[in-house]
Structure formats: C-alpha cells, structure tokens
C-alpha cells in the first residue's frame, strides 16, 4: 500500500470512526431512554433485572464514605445487576433523628443501618427475616453461624426473626495507659482483676502522680452505667422487656459508678458531655486520665490520637473488672444492615421475590467475609469470628499486641445490649441527670426516678 493509499485509508477510517462516534452520541439519549423504558422485570444482566438499591448509614467523614463506597462496589462486582447508591450521608446523631422520620413517612431507603440496642425501637421500619430466608439460597456458602452469635442475636425479635445482620460489634472494655501503670509500679490489669482492685489502682495513680493524672475518666452516659450495672449482676430490664431502674439496688450501683468523680479520682465532666460524646475518651487520649471504658471499634482512632498527641504512651486493653460473680459481663454493642419495610413500595412493578433476594444478597455482601476483612484492616471490629485475626493483626501492627486475650475473655460472658422501644428518650433522660449526680446536686435515686418517669414515647 502506497503512502497516499495508507493516508486515504487512514482518513476514511478516521472519518468512519468520527461518524460512528457522532452517531453513538446522537443515539445515546434515545438508548438511555429506551433502556429506562424497559418493562419492569425485563432481564438484561445474566437473566437478572438490574436494580438500584438505595442505602443509608451515618458517616463520620471522608474515610467512612470511602469505606462504604468500596463496599457498595463490592456488591456490584459480585452481582453486576445490583447497584448500591447512597440515599443520604447524615452524621451519626442526625441519622437517629432522620431514620424515625423516614420510617414514619414511609420514605426510608432500601437498605438501612441500625444498631442492636435500637432493634426494639425501629423494628417497624425493617423487614423481619426468618433464618431460612437468610441462608445460602441467595449467597452460596452464606451462613449465620459465621457471625458472633452475641452480635447476631442483638438483632433478633422476640419471635426469633432477624431485622439486620451485624457488620461490626464489640464488648465494652477498659482501655488503660500502660506507661502510667508501669511508671507507678502497678500490676497491669489482667483478666482476673476486680472492681476493688480497679479502685485501688486508680487511687494509687492519682496519689503517686500528685494529682497530675486522674486514675479514671468516668463517662456520664447511660450505656457505660448499664454495662457497669450488668457487670455487677443487675438486670435493667424485666423479663418482659420493661425498664426497671428506680430501685434501691440501682441507686446503690449508681452511687458506686459516680464514686470515682465524687472522690476526686476522676474529673467532673461538663453537663454537655453526653451530647458532645466521648468526653472521657478525650481525657484519656490527652493523658489526663489513666483508664476509661470504650469499645474496640474506637481503638484504632485512639492509637492515632495517642501517636499524634502531646502525651504519647503505650496503650493497654483489659476486660471490664470482674463483678461479684467472678465474671466480666459486659454489654455487646454493634451495628448492622437491614432491609426497609418499604422495599417493595420503593420498586413498584418489580418481581417481589427477586427484589427481596437481591436486597438479601446486598446485605449479605455488606456483612460478608470480604467486606469484613477490608473493614477489619481499617479498624472496625468484625462481627464474623473468622475475621477477628485480621483486626488483631491490624491493631498489633500499630503496637497493641496483647488485645486478643482480654477481648476474647470479655466476649466469653458478654450479653447483647437489649433495650426498650423508648430507648432514645430514656438515654437522654438519664444523661441529663448523671452530671448532677456526679456533682452532688442530684441524688442517685432521684436521677433514676427521673429516668424511669421520662422514658419518652415509644418510637
């Protein structure tokens, strides 16, 4: 072929490509229009109807958005006909205002995040799924036994149905400043330590540091108090699931809970500590307090904060001190994904069985091993037992090498954090009182009576 011919041929090819390109661009809108006009139920991807499922979860920042984008992409790569799309990205506290409004107005997206302690409150917004609906028929090899059963059972209704699958969870633990314990020659907290030993240790830290370091940062928050009470053998719910805390037993426990503050072994929190959240964590991270209670989900953030902080110290993890029965009975908290009760309404005309199957596939991938491993590597405590080593490995790579033994010990006797369907109001009522109890202007019994009387309306 001569140069002219090659040139002419190249020109023709170029023109042809340009023509094809122009035609494609011209036809694109009509192609899109015709695709969107496909009749409901039309099979286009491996015999499956493409479906876009909206989802919503609280976000704390760009890292969270990146995580969930990754997980949404994971669902799509596993099942190309399923697309997961954000409905909204509210902050944590906004989410719990937005969700009930959406449930009440039947405008919630298809896939919703929730927490085990809110199972009773928001059950009406979720599709209740039987165990058999969630088993391997949708995702080959999927099994409910892969989850930590405590984490899973937190989403069970009284009839055994599940409203969500857990993606993370954790027992409440005692985080401590190892450097301070070693500096003052105190034995490091172990699985066998008790509350009397804990009080002795925090008093020693306060005394030996000449008041420079508080032994403990007491959290003015309902969850932590209930964990303490549970560890001490008390039951805050009656067998029928009603709150009952206005008893002398709980008054005594509350007095014990606030004792470190009253005795000057822990700082007095500001009244807004429960709203701003994690005030005690900030005290601990800043090196102002030697111990505090938190879940493993915060450990990676603690490590980052301590590494970049002024007071750099070695982090230790311990179970909650053993209660009078010789066990560390902590409450299990966690988060998970469920399917909206309005799923079918959100997709009119779509085959219901197929739609439900797709939604189940989505939440099973969002809580599945691949996702869990990815999240564990980013610091979320995975709800699948087999994936825990990923989390321990991540934490160890940051220098906390001895977390496995205390966490496994804490998990042994941990119980799901159960709640009533009036929990939001109950929490707020208690949280509004506790700083007054710590400060001395409100008696423990009065605070508990107030909480009992102001549980709020059922959600």
């Amino acid at each position, binding site marked *: 072929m001569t140069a002219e011919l090659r040139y002419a041929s190249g020109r023709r090819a170029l023109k042809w490509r340009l023509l094809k390109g122009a035609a494609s661009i011209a036809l694109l809108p009509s192609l899109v229009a015709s695709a969107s006009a496909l009749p409901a139920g039309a099979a286009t991807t491996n015999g499956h109807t493409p479906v876009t499922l909206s989802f919503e979860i609280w976000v704390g920042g760009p890292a969270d958005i990146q995580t969930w984008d990754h997980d949404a992409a994971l669902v799509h790569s596993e099942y190309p006909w399923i697309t997961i799309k954000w409905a909204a990205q509210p902050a944590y506290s906004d989410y719990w205002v937005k969700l009930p409004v959406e449930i009440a107005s039947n405008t919630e997206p298809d896939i919703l995040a929730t927490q085990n302690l809110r199972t009773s409150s928001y059950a009406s917004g979720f599709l209740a799924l039987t165990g058999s609906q969630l088993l391997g028929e949708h995702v080959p090899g999927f099994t409910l036994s892969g989850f930590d059963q405590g984490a899973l059972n937190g989403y069970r209704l009284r009839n055994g149905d599940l409203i969500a699958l857990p993606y993370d969870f954790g027992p409440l633990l005692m985080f401590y400043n190892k450097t301070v314990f070693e500096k003052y020659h105190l034995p490091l907290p172990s699985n066998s330590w008790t509350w009397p030993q804990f009080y002795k240790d925090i008093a020693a830290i306060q005394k030996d540091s000449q008041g420079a370091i508080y032994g403990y940062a007491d959290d003015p928050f309902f969850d932590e108090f209930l964990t303490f009470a549970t560890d001490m053998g008390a039951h805050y719910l009656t067998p029928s699931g009603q709150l009952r805390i206005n008893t002398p037993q709980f008054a005594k426990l509350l007095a014990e809970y606030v004792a470190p503050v009253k005795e000057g072994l822990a700082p007095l929190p500001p009244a807004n500590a429960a709203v701003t959240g994690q005030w005690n964590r900030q005290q601990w991270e800043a090196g102002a307090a030697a111990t505090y209670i938190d879940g493993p989900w915060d450990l990676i953030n603690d490590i980052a904060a301590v590494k970049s902080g002024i007071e750099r110290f070695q982090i230790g993890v311990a179970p909650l001190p053993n209660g009078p029965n010789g066990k560390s009975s902590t409450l299990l908290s966690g988060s998970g994904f469920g399917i909206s009760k309005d799923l079918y309404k959100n997709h009119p005309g779509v085959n219901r069985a197929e739609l439900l199957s797709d939604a189940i596939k989505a939440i099973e991938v969002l809580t599945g091993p691949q996702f869990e491993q990815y999240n564990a590597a980013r610091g979320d405590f995975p709800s699948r037992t087999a994936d825990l080593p990923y989390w321990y490995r991540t934490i160890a790579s940051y220098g906390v090498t001895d977390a496995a033994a205390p966490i496994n010990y804490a998990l042994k006797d941990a119980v799901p954090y159960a709640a009533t369907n009036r929990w939001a109001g109950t929490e707020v009522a208690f949280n509004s009182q506790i700083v*007054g109890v710590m400060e001395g202007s409100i008696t423990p019994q009065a605070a508990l009576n107030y909480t009992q009387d102001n549980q709020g309306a059922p959600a």
Partner: protein
Amino acid sequence: MTALVERAGLAGSNPGALRGHGHRRRKERSDARAALAFLLPNGIGFLVFTLVPVIASLVISLYSWPLIGTRHFVGIANYRALFTKDSTFRAALLNTLYFVAAYTPLNIGVSLGLALWLRGYSRGRRLLRVLFFVPVLTPLVADSVVWSLLYTNRNGLIDEAVHAVFGVQGPNWLSSPHWVMPAIIIMSVWQGFGYNLLLFTAGIHAVPELYYDAARVDGASAWHVFRNVTLPLISPSLFFGTVLTIISAFQVFTQAYVLTAGGPGTSSTTLVYWLFEKAFDDYALGYASAIAWVLFVIVIAITLLQMRLQRRWVHYEV
C-alpha cells in the same frame, strides 16, 4: 381645589371630575394589582411555610402523635399534662424566664453603652463596629463550642484567668447547677449584642446635632443630654431592639443544647430545648407542639403588652 373637592367626595356632579375619578380608580386598581404581584411570593411563602405549619401544630398539639405508631385525639390533655405533671416543663419555663430577664437588659445595656461610647470615639470606630458585629455573623453552634472550651474546668481560659487574677479556682461553669445559666447568659450576650449595637448606632446618628448643641448651650450635663435628648429620640430603635431581643431570648436553644445539654439535671433546660427533646428524642410530636403553643402564647402576650406600653415611652416624632 379639585383635589379638595375630590377628597371631600363632592365631585359627583362634575363630568370632568368624574373622568378624573375614573382615571384615579383605574390607577388605584393597577397599583393594587402591582402591589399584590409583589406581595404574592412572600404571601405564598408565609402561607405554606408559616401559617399552615402553625395551624397544623395547633391541631397536632391536641393529639397523642408519636412519630412512629398510631395517633389519637386527646383534646387538651397535652396542655393539662404540661401544667400538672411535667416538672421539667416548669423548670424549663422558669429557666427561660430567668434567661429572658437577665439576657435582655444585659444585651440592651451593653449594646447601648457601646453605641454611645463609639459615638464619641473617632479613630477605629468602623473597625470596632465590625469586630463587635462578627459574633452575630458566626454560627451559634461554633460560638458555643468555643465557649465550652473557654469554660472548661481547671484548664479553660476563663478558669485560668480567674486563678491568675484572684488566686482562687473559678466556678465549675458547665457542671454546676448554679453556674450553667450565668454561663449561657454571658456567652449569649457576647454573641448577640452586635445586632442591637448597629441598630442603636443608627438611631443615635439620626439624632439631629442641633439638639445636642442646644443642650450644651443650656449647660446640660452628659447624663441629662443622654436622659433627655438621646434616649427619647432613639426610643423607637430601643423599642424595636427590645421587642426582637425578648422574642429571640424566649427561643434560646442552641446555647443550652451545645454548652450544657440542658443540664446538669434540668438546671439549664429551656422551653425550646425541652420542645426539641420531646419531639426528636421522645418522638412525642403532639406534646412538643403543645410546648410550642405555650411558648407562642407567652411571646405574643408579652409582645402585645410591649406594643401597648410603648405609647408611654416611645417618641416617633422628632
């Protein structure tokens, strides 16, 4: 003359006047249509976003209206519960009145004082005005977060300053039931006085200089000039500022929410804070609406009283 006749309604028998009258009526109709067209967007907005929700909230207040679940008519039971059973509502009402009673005179006093001071202050006056107004422009939530750090016990700037100057530990601003309300009031005055400062500055500048000259010639003292010249002549601004300040004071919420979460106990729970908790933590929308209506009635009553009393002390003519 024609105008006088027209105004007196005596032009009926005059054909020329009739033509003029018809022209005027056509013009009036045209003006009315134009006015309506200009008012319509605002009117629709007011109707859709204010009037309808306000009426709806009155209806909701007569219901037990959970966010999720069945609602049912309860008549005035929500109102009865507010005044007979709800001790937090009583505390919130008292706290709100405490806030209004302390915040309003402090706000008016500080802004008026600074406006007067700035009048006689030539260098950097504009810069100072801007600086005083900046807190009004910054988000209240951000202000509250900063002040919560300032108020921190033991390490906060205010506590350190008290310790440095007086050698004693300052009060526990955000944990003590006795100090939380003063803490909120101080922060609110700092945040809010800039608006009234601008208002009073404008009022003071509108006072003709010749009154001051005349007073000086008569040998009036600074106090007498303020009492008998400035104050009467800026009384419309003062009245306007006071009305708005009282209304906004009754609606205090953000400071209580961010600085103290209404606590400790109920020592800084305000009416709007309690309304918010009932609506968005307890999801009791009927009850929350009842609180809103009680607040609305209180604010309306006090505003009407102020409107009535203004005749005694507000001077519109210069």
